[in-house]
Structures are given as structure tokens and as C-alpha cells.
């Protein structure tokens, strides 16, 4: 079976690096990364991944705007998106869930179990 392909969109270098390392070495997935919303959208259009991990708080084009852009393109509108956020308030969580995402992951994540969390949220066996 072809390995899963994940796109990580986050403006923080350290988070991108840890997430990429974690998903590759723990789950054996193929990982692409993008450091901004626009870059994430263009990478997703180039090579649609199986899922996208999308940071909420990014300068200029934030997570929700990036999500709207992805939903606007036919090639990417069906890709499941997991929002990743350090906001912990329940109200924020509900607001994000209402945007039509597959799930919300909390930052900081545990690099040992990140792939389990992603699989769980997406219903991957």
C-alpha cells in the first residue's frame, strides 16, 4: 500500500520540523511542509495530500482563511483538514469545528503520539 501523504502548514519552523519528523519516523508517512497559507494552498493543488494539518494562527493568511481557499478549489475541497491550535478555550474549539474541518488538534502535541491522534481524528485504521 502506498504510504499516506500529509501536508503540514505552519509558520513556525520548529513545529513543522517536529511534526514532519514525528509523522515520518513513527508512522512512516510521506510529509510535505509549507510555511504559510498561500504556500500550503499551492502545494496542495500541485500534489493533493491525503490530509492537511493546518495551523490556525499565522500572519497575513491565517488558518481559517487558508481553509476557505482550499474549500474554494475543486481539487482540494475534499481533502480532510485538521486544524492545529494552541488556543485551549472551549469556545475557540467549537468555533473551529464549525468551519467544516475533520478535527482540531491541540498544540503542543506529543511527537510520540501525533500520528495516532491524526489517524484517530480521520478514522484511519
Amino acid at each position, binding site marked *: 500500500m502506498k504510504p499516506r501523504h500529509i501536508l503540514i502548514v505552519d509558520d513556525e519552523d520548529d513545529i513543522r520540523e517536529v511534526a514532519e519528523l514525528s509523522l515520518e*519516523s513513527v508512522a512512516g508517512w510521506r510529509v510535505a511542509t509549507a510555511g504559510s497559507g498561500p504556500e500550503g494552498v499551492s502545494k496542495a493543488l500541485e500534489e493533493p495530500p491525503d490530509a492537511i494539518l493546518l495551523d490556525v494562527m499565522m500572519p497575513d493568511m491565517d488558518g481559517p482563511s487558508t481553509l476557505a481557499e482550499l474549500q474554494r478549489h475543486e481539487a482540494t475541497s475534499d481533502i480532510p483538514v485538521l486544524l492545529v491550535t494552541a488556543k485551549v478555550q472551549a469556545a475557540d474549539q467549537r468555533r473551529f469545528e464549525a468551519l467544516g474541518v475533520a478535527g482540531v488538534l491541540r498544540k503542543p502535541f506529543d511527537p510520540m503520539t501525533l500520528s495516532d491522534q491524526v489517524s484517530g481524528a480521520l478514522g484511519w485504521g
Partner: protein
Amino acid sequence: MPSAGASGARAGLEAAIQGIWERHRSDFVKGVEDLESAVGALLDGGLDEHGRAHAERQAHKLAGSLGMFGRERGTELARDIERALGAGGGPRRSDSLRLSRLVGALREELGDESNAPEPQDDGAQATDGSLDRATLLVIEGDGDLGARLTTEAESRGMRSRAVRTPSAARAAVAHERPEAVLLDLTLADDSAGALELLSEVSRSDPALPVLVLTSSDVFTDRVEVARRGAFGFLPRSLGTVGVLDAVEEALGRRTAEEARILVVDDDAAVLAAIRAVLDREGVTVTTLDDPLALWDVLESVVPDLVVLDVDMPGASGIELLRTMRGDGRFRNTPVLFLTAHTDRETVNMIFESGADDYVPKPVVGPELRTRIENRLERIRLYRKLAERDGLTGVLNRRTAETALERLLRNASLLEQPICLAMLDLDHFKQVNDRYGHAAGDAVLRRFGGMLLAEFRGEDVVARWGGEEFLVGMQGMTSDDGVRRVAELIESFRTQRFTAPEGGFFQLSFSAGVAAFPSDASTVADLYRVADEALYAAKKAGRSCVLPAASLPAAALAR
């Protein structure tokens, strides 16, 4: 799959994550530094919306990252900071202390910054070839004064070093363990950085006395500086000689609080071994290999405990002890013998000569330490009993009077103000009558504890009698004192005490404040005037503080 393989992969991932941490660590440190600047600006009343939003973003980033690297506490701290910065209407100045504590703790979570290479051009100047232990650390932005101070320190036989930046200072504190710090708050135009540094250093373990250099042309929020644990204030105008005099005094007094042990043995190897066992925080060890010089050294050291070898050429330990016991000054000094002979005859002789205990040779570290600890514990206890109020742990009146005289003498030498506050619990008798004396004692204990937590360093905290307490604050004007006491009144009022029959009760206190030199120039007059102000505060409805300056002149003239 064998679990060894899985755990090996896990270890590999952990190592790789550690690598990412190392690579980005400086970014996290930078984030914390931004938070520190924001707290500094908040303290100065100058944190604008742009600065606040930037700091909030930094805290948010740190919260999202640190836990990923196993630093969950860092994430929690950053989250608290983010919340405080983003609270409705932004943080208030009164939040700054809490914020600064959080940010300080966060910095600690990032690990020892001093491991990072120091820039060469940090203004560090060693005045001693060996940097292993500087006695005095001078942290000063204007290199010229720093150089003059270190030169003066050198000429007095102190080791000394001057640094110009907070990061160089942190490294020096971590690696060189100075015994005292002189801090210029106008450090490189970064007063917030200097304040943060003050908090860190004065709360380091073991605590370091930090003397703060002040300047008449720069406003210093002395209350804030005192809260951050400054040991005392020194005006720059004292000049290098005056400043060093004050440093020596502070160091001397600190040494006086330590337990002094004198060890006499003709074998240098034994002395070195004992020193290694005993030398640590709170203990000063003097060693002597010539028993005939004992008398001179006894008089100069005045030890709390003497360790004597029984068999020494020239004079036996037992003879020396007999001579000691014949002198009134050393009749009660505890003496412990080291002996290779533990036959009954020798042991009897040891105790008959007036020794308190003995340790068989060869000396075994833990045993010697335990026996000496037992003695020292008792000495400290007796000292404490003689100086402190048994119930509250603050100084008793007799000791406080001496301490206040010293505080006033130094203040007048250093041309610094001092502020004296008399504090009296309101309606305390009713507490005793209604809830019993145990409840009353609990109130006094907590009140004493609160005062000890608030006033440190050179400050004097004492129970003056009954429910009346006294605080002497070094470097504080009347206004400063009123401000500090007013805040204490606020916080004490909200404290709850448990009533014996269940439920709780609350009470307040009133205070009067007088300052030197503005209100009076002797301890007796300061006390009298502060007491007048206290009386006026009681008459004004209690639960308030009044300065002597607010009293009608007639009241003061009495």
C-alpha cells in the same frame, strides 16, 4: 516486532527532537526576552498596544511549542502569560509582578542560558587571572565606574569582576558564584532587564546579597526594587571607597550569621579532608596546623565550634582545651575531639577535660558531618531563641533595637532615608476573647510571616509587644513606606482565619509611619513619631496607614 526495536526507534526520535530543540533554542530565548521587555515596559507604565500584542503572540508561540519538547511546564507558564497579556483591557501595572514571576520561571524552564557562548564584546573584564571565584560581581553599564570599583575591591584583597550586560551577569553568577553583587539599575539603558536580573539573582539559591546603586538624577522605584529582593541601596555619589566600605560591611555581617568552625590538627591532609567535608553554605571553616598558634586564632575567629586533634606535637589537644576552659570567653565553646585512640582511659580523659564529643580517627566524612551538624543545630537554635520572638519568628524587641540603631547609623553614613512603621492589629483583643488564644496566636503567626515575606535584606521586622509590630525599611522614604504598608493592609484584610467553631473571621491592622531624615533623626524619636501616627490612624477609623507628616505639628512636638 521485538520491543527493543521499538524503543530504539523511540530513542532515535527523541534524540532527533532534542536536535531540533537545540537548533531553535535561541528563538525561544528571544521570545522570552521579548516577554521580559514587555513586563519591563508595563512596570514603567509604557506598554503600548503594539508591544502588548507582540508579547501575547510570543507567549502563544511558546505555549504551542515548548510542550512538544517535553517542557510541559514551559507551556503552562506561557499559557498563563498569554492569558494575562490578553485579558480584557490588557494587563494592568499591578499585574506586572505576577507576570514578571511567570516570565522568570519560564526563562528557567528554558535552561541555563549561560551555556550559550558569550559574545566577546560584552564588556567583561577580569581583574584576576583566575575566574573560578569572584567575590564581588559588579554589574554596571558605564564601564568606567565598573573598572574603578573592581580596582578598589582588588586593593582590599577582594576578588572582583565587572560585567556590562544582563547575559554576562547571569553567566558570571552561574559559573563564578560571587558572594555579593553590585547592580547598577540604569544598566545599558535597560532598566527592565536590570530589574529582572535583580529578581533572579536575589532569589537564586543560595541567595546572593544584591546592593543596588542609585543615582540622584535617575528616578528609582525603591519599593519595586526592594520587592525584588535588593539587599540594600547605595548612592553612586558615595564614590568607590564609600561603596566598597558598604559592601565589606554587608559581607561581614553575612559572615557573622554563618557558623564558624575552627579545626586544629598538625596533619595537613586531615585538615584538607575535614575542610572538604564541612565546607558548604552557612559554614565557615578555619584550619590551623600549628597548635601553639591556637590562642591567636581563637581570639580573631571566635569560633562557634572547635575541632581539636588529641595528639599533636608541642601541645596535646587536651592541654589546649583545659586552657580554653579556663578563659571565660571560651568556657562554653563546644569542642569536639579527633582521636586515634578510643580506649576507655583516653575517652574518659577527653570528657573530663571538658570536651563535648569525640570522633574516632581515621575521620569518616558522614560521621563527622553528622556530629558537627548536631552541635551546630543546637547553636543556631540557641541563637535564634535569643534573638527571635518565639511565636512569630520575627526579631524580638531587644534585638530589633540594636538592629534599628545600626540601620539608622548606616543610613546616615550613606545619606539614605529609612522608614519606620508601627503596625497594630485592629480589635485583636476581641479575637482572643471570642475565638480563644490559639486563634489569636495563629493570627500573630501569620501576620509575622507576612511581614517576613515582604521585608527582606537590610530591613528589620520585629514584634514590639502584644499585637504591635515594627518594620524598619532601608532606603525608603515616608511615601515609599506608606505605599508598601497600604498594600499590606489591603492584602491582609482579605485573609481568612479559621474560627475554632467553624467558619472564618477576618481582621485588619492600622499603621503609623515615620522616616529619617524627614520626620526624626534618632531611633527613639522615629519610634515616638510613628507611634503618634499609628494612634491617629486608629482614631481615623482603623485599617489605614498615616504618615507622621500628616499629623498636626502640636502632636509631634509633645
